[in-house]
Each structure stands twice: as C-alpha cells, then as structure tokens.
C-alpha cells in the first residue's frame, strides 16, 4: 500500500519543481488530446511552445508575448495577494471591464482635446473603476459577511451587461455609421497606448506589469502589510492575536486586485483592443487565476507564469491558423495545466510512503 505522509515542513524543492512537472505533464496529456483530434501532437506542441520564440515569425510573435503577458501578470499579482490572505476575488474579469469603461469614458469625454495630462488621468480613472467594482464585494464581506466569491462573480455578469450598453449606447462612436463600438483610440493620440519600442510589444501596460511585480515582491517580503497578508492566510487565529484586522485586509486586498485589474483593462482597451466593443474582453480575468497559481502566488513566479500562459495564447493562435486547431482546445489545455499543478502540488506538503502491511511500523 502506498500512503501519504505529511511533511514536517513544505519541501522547497517541490515548491519550485511542481510548475515544471505540471507543464511537462500537460504537454504529454495535451499531446494525446491533440492526437485524438487527428493532429500531429509533436507539431502542435512545437507550434505552441517553440515557434513563437524561435520560429520563422518569432520577430513578430515575441512582441505579441508581452502584449498578452502584460494584463495577465498585472491581474494575477493582485489576485495572488488576496489568495495569499484567503480572500477569493474571482471577479477580476468584471473589474477589468469596469476599469476599461471608466478610463475610456474619461478619454472619450474630452475628445478631441490634445493634452499630455489626458492619458495619466485616464489611467487613474481605469484603476478607480476596477477598485470601485471590487469594493462592492469587499464592503459586503466586511459589513454583512457575504461570500466574496459569489458576489464578485455575479458582478462579472453585471459588468458584461454594462459593457454591452456602453458599446451600443453611451460610449458608441457617433461617427460609427451605427455600428456598435466606441471611437478607436489609435486615431486619438492623447488617449492612445501605443507600442513604446517598435516591434517589442511593450506598451504602458507591460511596463506597469513589470513594475507592479517588483513592488508586490517588496510588499510581500519586506513590508508589514505583506507579512500580515501571509500570516492571515497561513494562521488566521494567530493573525487575529497579532492585531491584524480581517476587514481591513479584505478591503486592502480586494481594492488592490480590483485596481490592478482595472488598470489592465484600461491599458488593453486603449492599446491592443483599440476601442470599447461588446467583446473586447477575452477572459484575461479568469486566465489570470491560473497564472496566479502557476506562479505559486509569488510576484516573480507570476511574471514567469504570465509569459508561459501568453505563450499558450500566441502559440495557440498560430496552431489555430496554421494547423486548424480549435480555439477551445487551448482553453482545455490551460485548464489541464491548472489541474496538473494542483495535483502535483501534493508533493510540496506530503510525501508518498510505502506502508508495510496494515499494522506497519507504527
């Protein structure tokens, strides 16, 4: 009989090895899945993981990596702070949408004024939109002890209806011939979020993501608030005795993650997406949950995980156009990755032992 035995302390080796093992397992099982769909598994895996980095069109695709990784990292860092403290904000998609709408609304309100201050104000408005949307579940949690998971998720559906209203109503392009969607920011320089270095894919969102990762690392490892977050997650009772106010922590973590998601939405809508449209949001808010766990809820790990997940997006698009792989296959692939990660993670806290018979060495 093989049985599990709890480790005295978590294994440092497996803490870092599990993401790697999970990725390898996902490649193997994903390969089987692709083979069942009648594709050459080796070719698909190479298209997803190798070609965007070193293939024929890598010069363009490498830039795309940063475009996709930016919002994922930005959102995932905020979520990870909450997850560390046992606060489950899973409505980042809604906060992302509301940030984009608020920020875009500010920019569109002053169209066509040209002023250097417009974009910074839009950025603040975007962060505010996401923050305000996240404050709803946070305040309901602290005031009425309402489950933040369900409330934040319900608000995603509400945000999506508001987005539909924005794209077809109050933010619609008046010169858009009646088509849904706002004015395009690429033709409004004061409010646009262009590529900073040609071909690199780096825009302000990418810069914000990398800076935030650094700041979050400092917060978690060097600042009292980060210590309280970690303490509240690992030993809630001890945290209470230490004087950590659970309510303040909820407001802090939800607020931070909401603001970061809102920022990601603003950078996306003014940059790569270009305009508020009914479906400009592509599920980054949900994928970021996978990124947060894959990065071990650690800001630096999340940066790596964000790039890996971006690789599956960019490579997945390549596989879709070149090999006819359905888009949904990539979604399945990403879901599998999270499953394997959660399964392999058992090795961090437990070890497998062979017990010698029922009465063993006890």
């Amino acid at each position, binding site marked *: 009989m093989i049985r*599990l035995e*709890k480790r005295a302390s978590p294994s440092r080796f497996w803490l870092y090895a599990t993401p790697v093992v999970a990725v390898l397992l996902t490649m193997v099982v994903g390969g089987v899945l692709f083979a069942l769909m009648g594709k050459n598994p080796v070719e698909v895996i190479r298209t997803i993981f190798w070609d965007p980095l070193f293939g024929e069109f890598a010069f363009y695709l490498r830039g795309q990596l940063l475009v996709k990784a930016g919002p994922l990292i930005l959102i995932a860092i905020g979520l990870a702070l909450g997850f560390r403290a046992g606060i*489950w904000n*899973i409505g980042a998609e809604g906060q992302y949408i509301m940030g984009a709408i608020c920020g875009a609304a500010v920019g569109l309100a002053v169209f066509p004024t040209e002023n250097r201050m417009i974009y910074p104000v839009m950025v603040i408005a975007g962060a505010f939109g996401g923050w305000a949307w996240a404050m709803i579940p946070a305040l*309901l949690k602290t*005031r*009425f*002890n*309402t*489950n933040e*998971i*369900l*409330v934040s*998720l*319900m*608000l995603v*559906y*509400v945000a999506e*209806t*508001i987005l*539909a*209203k924005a794209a077809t109503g109050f933010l619609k392009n008046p010169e858009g011939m009646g088509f849904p969607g706002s004015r395009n920011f690429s033709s409004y320089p004061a409010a646009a979020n262009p590529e900073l270095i040609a071909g690199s894919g780096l825009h302000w969102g990418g810069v914000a993501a990398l800076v935030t990762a650094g700041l979050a690392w400092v917060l978690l490892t060097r600042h009292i608030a980060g210590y309280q977050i970690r303490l509240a997650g690992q030993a809630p009772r001890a945290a209470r005795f230490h004087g950590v106010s659970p309510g303040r922590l909820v407001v802090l973590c939800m607020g931070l993650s909401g603001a970061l998601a809102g920022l990601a939405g603003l950078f996306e809508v003014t940059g790569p997406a270009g305009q508020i449209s009914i479906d400009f949001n592509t599920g980054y808010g*949900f*994928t970021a*949950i*996978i990124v947060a*766990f894959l990065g071990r809820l650690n800001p630096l790990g999340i940066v790596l995980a964000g790039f890996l997940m971006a690789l599956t997006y960019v490579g997945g698009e390549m596989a879709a156009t070149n090999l006819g792989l*359905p888009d*949904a*296959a*990539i*979604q*399945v*692939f*990403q*879901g*599998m990755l*999270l*499953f394997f990660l*959660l*399964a392999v*993670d*058992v090795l961090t*806290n*437990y070890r497998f032992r062979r017990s010698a018979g029922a009465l063993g060495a006890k």
Partner: protein
Amino acid sequence: MDWGGIDPVILVATLMASAVPILLAALGETVVERAGVLNLGVEGLMVIGALGGFVTAVHTGSPVLGFVGGAVSGALLSLIFAALTQVFLANQVATGLALTLFGLGVSSLGGQGYNGIKPPATGPLLPEALGDLPVVGPILFGHDWVVYFSILATAVTWWVLKATRAGLIIRAVGESHEAAHALGYKVNRIRLLCIAFGGAMAGMGGAYISLARVPQWVDGITAGAGWIALAIVVFASWRPWRVLLGAYLFGGISVLQLNLQVAGSGIPVEYLSMAPYLITILVLVLMSSGRGRAAVGAPAALGQNFHASR
C-alpha cells in the same frame, strides 16, 4: 387575467420549468456541502452536462437517455474534482475554479458541429386534456417529467438527509470529519460519492437547459446558472425545501424579466437582464447579515480537506 401583458398563470407555470436547472444543481451541491466539500465547479459541471445530454439525445433520439447522458458526464467530470481534492488534497476553491474553466473549454471544444441542430423534444408527461384545464392545468399538470422529477428529488434529498442512516453519516462527515473518522467511517470515500452525486445532478440540470429550455447547443449555454445554484445553497441555509423555494424565486425573477422585455415595459433591456444577478447578491446579503446569519447553517467542516494521519 392579464397584468400589463403578463399572464400570472403562464408566469407560474414557466417559472417552475425555468427553475429546474438551478434546482437540480443546487440540490446536488447541498449534499456535497453537507458532506463538508465546497465544489465551486458547478458551472463547469452544468455546461458539460448540457453538452453530454445534448449529444446523447441527438444521437440516440431519446430525450430520456439524453438526461442520463447529462448526469453521467457531470458525474465523470466531478470525479476529477473528487480525485484532486480527496486523493491529492488540493485546495477546494482553486480546484473548483479550475473545474469550471476546464468544463467550459471542453464543452466548447466538444460542441463544435452541434450548433443549429434541434434535439428531440421533451413533451408534457400527462395527457393534454389535463394541461388544458384553466389555471391548475398549466401549473400542476402541464409540465414535462423533469419538472416533477426535480420536486421529487427535493423530497428525497430532504428525507435522506434528515431521516436516514446515510444522511446521518453524510452530515457527520460534514460537521466533524475527525469524529466521523474516529467512528470508522471512510471520510474521503463518502465525500467522493457525494461529489459524484452532485456532479450527476448538476449535469442533469445542465442537460435540461440544452434539451428543454433553449433547446439547442450554444457555447457557454449555462450563462452563470451554476453560480446562481451555489448562491441558492447559501440562501437556503443548506436545506432542500428552501433550495426549492430559492430556485423558484430566481426562476420567477428570470421569467419575469424576460416577460417584461417582451412586453416592452419601458425599463431598458440591460437593466432587466442584470436583475437576476443583482437580486442574487441582494438575497445573499440579506441572508448573511443580521439575525438570519447564513454561517449558522453552514456545515462546520465546509471546505476543509481531511487527511487521516492516524
């Protein structure tokens, strides 16, 4: 009778049918949570059930087999959750979310080629003459078999949890897994069975959406029904008859808002379609605040994994 273009008899009759998916899923989740497991993957289970049921029904031509197929596919997917949380002791919140993301992906992958097909119809169970009776006809006799099944399932779940030995064991495992383990019950095995039951119920609920409510296959067909089911379990303080009440309340709201859209009530469509979600939040707040604290009814070991160290 006619209130502003809405017939109350038809309203009650349709709300009973529209509540079926969330009712079935919420009943399953009630049992799962009573056993101390928080499965946030209901949405994924429902969407897989919707696809599994649809595909089975289209290929066999039998709507009844379709519901069986939905239940089986829900149960199979929930076994992944069971394996991860009960064998590999993974975090239940994270695993549930992963299950939803995975389920949505698998369903949209597997559902390709099924768009635009009509499934075999699920007709009324009782003779039409009964359904044509005024007022009581549509409300009591005009439904398909799944509506009656869902009410029966509520009664059975209530009876099993309250009055049987199996129910007692499930509740013991959910209230104190240490004590249940000390009494010699296989905590993780019991939980695994409950999770599979919850998966089957959610799958069947999903199948009702794709076979009877919509009825066709659309990507992401469940549109948050699984999350509403989770909210209803909290609303119901983990009690089956209150689950029925909650499901009918939400069924009523969603039918009413659709009717108001059709009737052209002057309230913008967007506000009407966000109403079910906003009201869910409102009810959650009311249930969890003040004297009616939801936490009072929650199983004590909810969301905690159990590892038998001795």
